[in-house]
């Protein structure tokens, strides 16, 4: 595990033991055939051996394409799915197989914010009921105190507490996401898993939610596992960033190191594919266009899983699977036999507004 220890990022000292630790986590979904007698004919290897540590107070970003297993990984960490193999530790305790009351107690410490603020709120319940549901279920406060507590939460996330009795359809997308955040905060969790929390929102609203999450983090000392496919958003919110490809972490490092000097060709390709909202900078960047699509996780390629699409692949890549190893700055690890050396995105060009005609 020592490979993952990194220098503390500014303002966020990374102390001692991780809050969440995944140890060689594997999650396979069986594929069965037959109607009466189902037999297993294969498995979707959604998560296939992941080691990951999330330290208290940090935001760990997790990026990857659709189907790379990032949401499955989050659900495994939350104990919403049982692992096929491996271990999950929370605050130094093995939670891989906890059940019943113990699991219930664990849920208080880890909550989730979902992508779609339309689908994740019950349209037939008032938002007072929605935000108060965790309080009622876990009985952390007495019945009479639920309403004032919920209204306090609403104030905290920037909603008008007088809207307690309104229904989700009366709110805009951004406000709904605030409701989702308030619900996640109700039990005063220590870890919040944000699964694409802003991808369904309009650009001008995204910033409001991102700022809210940042404020809550410093106010309530929260730890985030932040999943998104938008690399600019992930860079903005994260302390460290990990890149996932086909069920495995291929690169992890402090965000500056990872974005400035990516080591894994896949990270390089992802970065080069991000449209940059700056015409000059966009023209300067190294363009790497990946061919084809992500292979099926049912039958992943041999050796390095990225080799069929990799522009640097050599014979060794199809035979020998590269392991995560330290590369570049301390705490920066990547799984590649032939790591990148060049930068993908150059620094900001100096633009003088006066110089334009």
């Amino acid at each position: 595990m020592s490979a993952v220890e990194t220098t503390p990022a500014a303002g966020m000292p990374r102390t001692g033991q991780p809050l969440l630790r995944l140890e060689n986590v594997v999650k396979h979904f069986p594929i069965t055939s037959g109607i009466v007698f189902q037999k297993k004919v294969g498995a979707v290897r959604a998560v296939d051996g992941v080691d990951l540590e999330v330290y208290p107070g940090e935001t760990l970003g997790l990026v990857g394409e659709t189907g790379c297993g990032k949401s499955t990984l989050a659900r495994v960490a939350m104990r919403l799915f049982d692992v096929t193999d491996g271990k999950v530790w929370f605050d130094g305790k093995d939670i891989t197989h906890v059940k019943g009351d113990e699991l219930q107690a664990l849920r208080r410490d880890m909550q989730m914010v979902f992508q779609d603020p339309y689908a994740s709120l019950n349209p037939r319940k008032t938002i007072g009921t929605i935000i108060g549901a965790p309080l009622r279920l876990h009985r952390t406060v007495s019945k009479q105190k639920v309403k004032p507590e919920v209204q306090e939460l609403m104030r905290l996330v920037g909603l008008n507490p007088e809207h307690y009795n309104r229904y989700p359809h009366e709110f805009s997308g951004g406000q709904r996401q605030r409701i989702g955040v308030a619900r996640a905060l109700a039990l005063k969790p220590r870890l919040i898993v944000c699964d694409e929390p802003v991808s369904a929102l309009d650009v001008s609203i995204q910033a409001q939610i991102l700022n809210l999450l940042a404020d809550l983090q410093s106010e309530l000392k929260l730890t985030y596992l932040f999943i998104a496919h938008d690399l600019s958003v992930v860079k903005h919110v994260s302390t460290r960033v990990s890149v996932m490809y086909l069920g495995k972490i291929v690169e992890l490092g402090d965000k500056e190191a990872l974005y400035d000097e990516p080591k894994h060709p896949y990270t390089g390709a992802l970065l080069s594919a991000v449209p940059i909202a700056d015409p000059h900078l966009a023209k300067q960047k190294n363009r790497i266009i990946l061919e084809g699509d992500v292979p099926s996780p049912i039958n992943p390629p041999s050796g390095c899983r990225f080799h069929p699409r990799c522009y640097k692949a050599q014979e060794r890549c199809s035979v020998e699977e590269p392991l995560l190893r330290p590369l570049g700055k301390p705490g920066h690890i990547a799984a590649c036999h032939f790591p990148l050396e060049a930068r993908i995105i150059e620094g900001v060009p100096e633009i003088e507004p006066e110089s334009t005609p």
Partner: protein
Amino acid sequence: MPDPLLEVKDLKVHFPTEDGLVKAVDGLSFTLKAGETLGVVGESGSGKSVSFLTVMGLIGRKSAIIEGEVLFQGQDLVQMTNEELREIRGAKIAMIFQDPMTSLHPFYKVGDQIAEMILAHEDIPKKEAGQRAVEMLRRVNIPQPDERAEQYPHEFSGGMRQRAMIAMALSLNPDLLIADEPTTALDVTVQAQILGLIDRLQSEFNTAVALITHDLGVVAEYCDQIQVMYAGRIVEEGTADDIYYRPMMPYTWGLLRSIPRLGHELDRLTPISGSPPSLIFLPDGCTFSPRCPYVFDECHVVEPDLLPVDGHHAARCHLSLEDRERIVRDEVLATT
């Protein structure tokens, strides 16, 4: 200079509803030349999709009140009958949509769907149309196009479905391709493939492209001309350099300051306060005034015109040019 390919003059699209008149597009004017790429940026509800659906003649005249002119190669599309429109739709103006799964028919083979489009406009044998469909699939880089043409949409990945849509849209070599959020549902790597493909085919076919998106990154990389839309009208238009290095409208500033941008890292984003206005009860004066941090008295009374800043760069704002230049220099570019 040749006549513009598309000229929209004071287009208004209003939908009568039980709650009142929804002014989805309210006084839109612009021109698009052959071979040019126009980026249309705006949030949901800014009217960017409705205006181009109107250009395609896809807004039902029974459900909407359409005023103004849409001149395509000199002919007014708004005045055309459905039969006349059908001649143009597909053959001269083609459109691709955000969600390629819902735009392809799940029951028919992909090749047949492309061939159907060709057969609707050209009197050629079915077999030849099929061959042309395969050829189009090849041109959009679909591997083994002859086998793929025999498959159904569910057998394609998201990126391939969007390629198939592009193949269909370009199969009759249209003069104008309208791409409505073509990559929003796709991963970044696939997005780069698709946008690169549109870019390449555009120069091959000399097609004009209207790229509708909410992503400021996408327009920065691929568009010559950019329109920023807000509440049914254009609030700023200009070249990419104008919009990114010398924006002249507070809404554009707000957009640039509220997104995390690679290469321009900020500790904190500056969101635009409030939410977009209701299209039924538009605010008096400037539509952006309720959310604008630089608002003053006049903004609540008179709507500013889209006035030229220089060349083709124009913006709607009451602030004096000097003030705006100062704000851009000291606040907007300094913080982005």
